[in-house]
């Protein structure tokens, strides 16, 4: 069965909704803000993400195709199987995203998505250029070995990404209670983008917020978050946005006079960890600011 490239097909929808949101904010004078250079950076990051996908996509696809040869079953492509694959892939997304915040090697790729001080639909397109290098594709291996085809796994991953576009907005306050209880929403995801101590490393969900409730990382939105990074970037240059944390991490890993264990820790411990305790992790920041 052939599955469409839903992300590419959604590009006109993304552009249309961006235009609607910009005009809506201008007319209403509320519901978020857009800034020219910030928006340009987000859109260029999005375009670069597509280019990186074309350039490096063969790595993941090659890996999945190879794994498919070892699959225990071929579950076919019925609607039920696609739906099951979607739910399981969303669980996979939760963990990839959680590692993206808790393992510096993966954070180096994901950080750029959090680097805007604004929260609007353009922020959704501020995507990584370096996802392949995180090797997080291995978390999709169980799905393929269980018998979901690589094409289906990539398709549901695309649907997941498209779903997450509309939740990057301040124009929508809260959805109906039943929806907020089960699904990831603008309110839940605003919390995820907050740099406020109590909001750090929370609400990792892609589509279903139930994973955060299940694994203890859910925090409801109270006051409006302060968006961005713990230390905000002082540049809009997309190259610096894309690579700054890789550069910083590699500088730490290859710094002189460290043990091998410390070098590995700089790659695998949470962002903010340092061998001499001179920096703070999100856990430490949260502990210091706990009520």
């Amino acid at each position, binding site marked *: 069965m052939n599955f469409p490239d839903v992300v590419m097909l959604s590009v006109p929808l993304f552009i249309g909704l961006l235009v609607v949101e*910009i005009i809506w904010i201008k007319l209403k004078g509320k519901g978020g803000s857009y800034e020219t*250079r910030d928006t340009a950076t987000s*859109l260029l990051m999005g*375009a670069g993400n597509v280019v990186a996908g074309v350039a490096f996509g063969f790595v993941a696809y090659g890996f999945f195709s190879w794994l498919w040869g070892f699959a225990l079953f071929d579950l076919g492509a019925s609607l039920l199987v696609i739906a099951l694959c979607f739910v399981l892939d969303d669980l996979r997304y939760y963990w990839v995203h959680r590692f993206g915040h808790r393992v510096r090697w993966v954070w180096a790729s994901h950080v750029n998505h959090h680097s805007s*001080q604004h929260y609007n639909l353009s922020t959704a397109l501020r995507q990584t250029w370096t996802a392949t290098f995180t090797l997080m594709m291995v978390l999709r291996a169980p799905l393929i070995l269980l018998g979901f085809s690589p094409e289906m796994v990539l398709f549901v991953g695309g649907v997941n990404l498209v779903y997450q576009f509309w939740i990057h907005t301040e124009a929508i306050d809260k959805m109906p209670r039943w929806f907020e209880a089960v699904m990831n929403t603008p309110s839940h995801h605003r919390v995820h983008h907050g740099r406020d101590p109590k909001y750090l490393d929370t609400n990792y969900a892609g589509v279903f917020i139930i994973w955060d409730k299940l694994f203890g990382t859910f925090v409801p939105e109270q006051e409006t978050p302060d968006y*961005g990074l713990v230390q*905000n970037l*002082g540049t809009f240059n997309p190259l610096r946005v894309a690579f700054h944390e890789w550069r910083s991490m590699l500088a730490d890993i290859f710094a002189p006079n460290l043990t091998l264990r410390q070098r590995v820790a700089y790659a695998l411990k949470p962002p903010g960890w340092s061998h001499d305790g001179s920096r703070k992790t999100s856990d430490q920041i949260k502990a210091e600011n706990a009520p």
Partner: protein
Amino acid sequence: MPVWITLIIVIAGISGIVALVHFTGGSVRARLESKAGALKTWLAQFPDHPATGALLEPTGHAALIDLEDGRTGILWAMGRGAAGRVLQGGALQVRGARLRIDLADFTAPHIDVVIKDEPVRRIWAEALEAALTKGDENELS
């Protein structure tokens, strides 16, 4: 779809949206309205570096922050948001009304502060020179 058509759509889409944001007021930069506001913004960004005073640039697009530990911080408008850094080494260039601070920081390589009023610019230049020199000494010690 041919690659060149995709490329045109992407370039036109990005340019169009950026132009729309600009013409709907998106290029207005953040302003620090008062010293108290600058200190509050600083504290929100750097809670571990308490401040004792601030020197506002006349248009409110930047502020020098006096820190409790004797060092100096700088806040500047990043579009509608703000970024800040503790000054730890670096160089100052004066280009007409523009003060350019070059930092050894990949995430903030240059900070430009434009001050049209010459006496105020001189005060800022002297304060920055002193802060950057002090930062250099701190880095060496």
